């Protein structure tokens, strides 16, 4: 399948000269579930923001659906890529139904008026992520898991070809983590959407990802199928702690078990 995202020699540094990303080359296949893992500060969030068009890359090339990212207008990117950030502001809490409907924004005319059709799409998106019963609630009144599903519904309502998520399962309990991951799997399978996710949970990543990428200090350490990326040698070198890697009881994917108190300096 042709790549939905293709990245060539991508680098990024902060204005003070600190390198965040250097020389990244990779492709993300259309309709795949792609997960980016790596230690804190390895540049995962920056990479996702560059792909989302929120930050300009320092050098290199990013192609979205075969066209250079630079050639897209702000709204044109928004019609192809939806982004779910780590945190969303809630100082002025909207109703769930409105927050989801906001996903239609890049498809609307000059004054941002939604039609009945847009409302129907929002309703379907809420049904897809099973938050339709929350439509009349305010987003600050929801639990973390419910809120994450609302923001995913907003992203679906945007009708993108690619969805980028930055640690959507952080601070969720294990059942809600699974619900989010299953939702992404369903989105990929039923809607053909390419899912790109940043995650800290290596085991969940191994269970769901079609392809994985391991970053360390802005460099690509390994990238490919979970079984090729998640070897104990690579992981120990990258994270600096003892890890056991064996086969998951659920199937042929790797399972990673951390060993307490054993750091490699």
């Amino acid at each position, binding site marked *: 399948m042709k790549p939905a995202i293709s990245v060539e020699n991508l680098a990024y540094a902060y204005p003070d000269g600190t390198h965040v990303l250097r020389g990244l080359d990779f492709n993300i296949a259309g309709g795949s579930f792609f997960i980016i893992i790596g230690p804190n500060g390895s540049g995962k969030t920056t990479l996702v923001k560059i792909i989302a068009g929120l930050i300009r890359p320092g050098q290199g090339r990013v192609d979205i659906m075969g066209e250079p990212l630079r050639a897209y207008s702000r709204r044109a990117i928004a019609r192809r890529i939806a982004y779910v950030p780590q945190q969303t502001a809630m100082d002025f809490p909207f109703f769930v139904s409105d*927050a989801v409907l906001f996903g239609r924004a890049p498809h609307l005319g000059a004054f941002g008026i939604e039609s009945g059709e847009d409302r129907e799409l929002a309703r379907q998106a809420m049904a897809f992520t099973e938050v339709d019963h929350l439509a009349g609630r305010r987003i600050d009144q929801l639990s973390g898991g419910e809120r994450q599903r609302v923001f995913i519904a907003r992203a679906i309502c945007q009708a993108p070809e690619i969805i980028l998520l930055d640690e959507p399962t952080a601070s969720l309990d294990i059942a809600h983590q699974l619900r989010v991951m299953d939702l992404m799997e369903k989105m990929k399978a039923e809607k053909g959407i390419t899912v790109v996710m940043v995650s800290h949970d290596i085991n969940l990543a191994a269970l769901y990802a079609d392809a994985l990428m391991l970053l360390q200090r802005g460099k690509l350490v390994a990238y490919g199928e979970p079984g090729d990326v998640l070897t104990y040698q690579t992981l120990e070198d990258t994270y600096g702690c003892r890890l056991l890697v064996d086969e998951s009881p659920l199937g042929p994917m790797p399972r990673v078990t951390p060993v307490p108190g054993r750091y490699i300096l």
Partner: protein
Amino acid sequence: MMLPAVVKRIFLVTGIMLVFLGGAMLLGVSMGSSGAGWVAIKESVSALNDPGSPLHSIIWKIRLPRVLLAALVGAVLSLGGLVFQALLRNPLAEPYILGISGGAAIGAIIGIMIGLTGLAGSWILAFAGGMTTLFIVLGIVSGATMMKKESLLLSGVMVNAFCSAVIMFLISLTMDARLHNIMFWLMGDLSSAGPREITWLAIAVLPCFLIVFRVSHAMNLLLMGRDMAHSMGVNVRLTTVGLLILTSFMVSTTVAQVGLIAFVGLVVPHLLRLLLGPDHRELVPACIFGGAGYMVLCDLLARILPRHGEMPVGVITAMVGAPLFIYLLRRSSS
């Protein structure tokens, strides 16, 4: 053709606010130091088309221009508060509290002192003053602390205090008859403007209202965070900077004309948000017309409450607004 639900709500909200504004203007035109109550309204209505009545010229020459000015000022200050609250994602932000009105006042006073006549001179100086304080406040809180509510407000309060000191210094240099005028103007004076000034103010601010309404949905998206808004197709930088400049311009010209009127931009958006929710496509027209009506009523109180003469309208708005501000601050910190 079926209108989309949002459009229906915008029309409904605008209609209700127009009725409120119309009622407030009727009261404002018909009541005054010469009489208040139902009788005054009836007399005023019958005097409207009777050139022989003494009320006729009072209404057309004095009260109506003043009511129109109050309406414009109320609309500008309410909308200014709404925009700052959305852009800074801080329900307590307001042009007066952030020190923008104070900076504009310094500019306007300098204009008076160096003898700049005409609107353009004082407006430009007021605008320069307002923009300067805005950038000082935003500069103080830029970067990581930007989102901290308290640091933004504290910076505004301090810049405001500094502006007050500068204003007092400038006044101390002024020893002639202009002193009383400046003092009265400082507290919010709606009696100064004639038809010419009002027309120019309207020409300056009405296009701003349209532009703000045009980007009202972008303001909704900005409330969910800059990155989120950006990822939904909003040109965040252009929208933010453009709105900050536009709002400072509206507020500065208004301050140059009528002086410092505090807390209107806090009270009106807050009440309307309670009534209507946080959708700016409804809040923008509601703030324009509702804020206009609120100011007309405040001015009416300022005119009829004192037994002799009148008081500056800024006294009324501050007496309503300051307690509300304290209440909101307490609630937001708990």
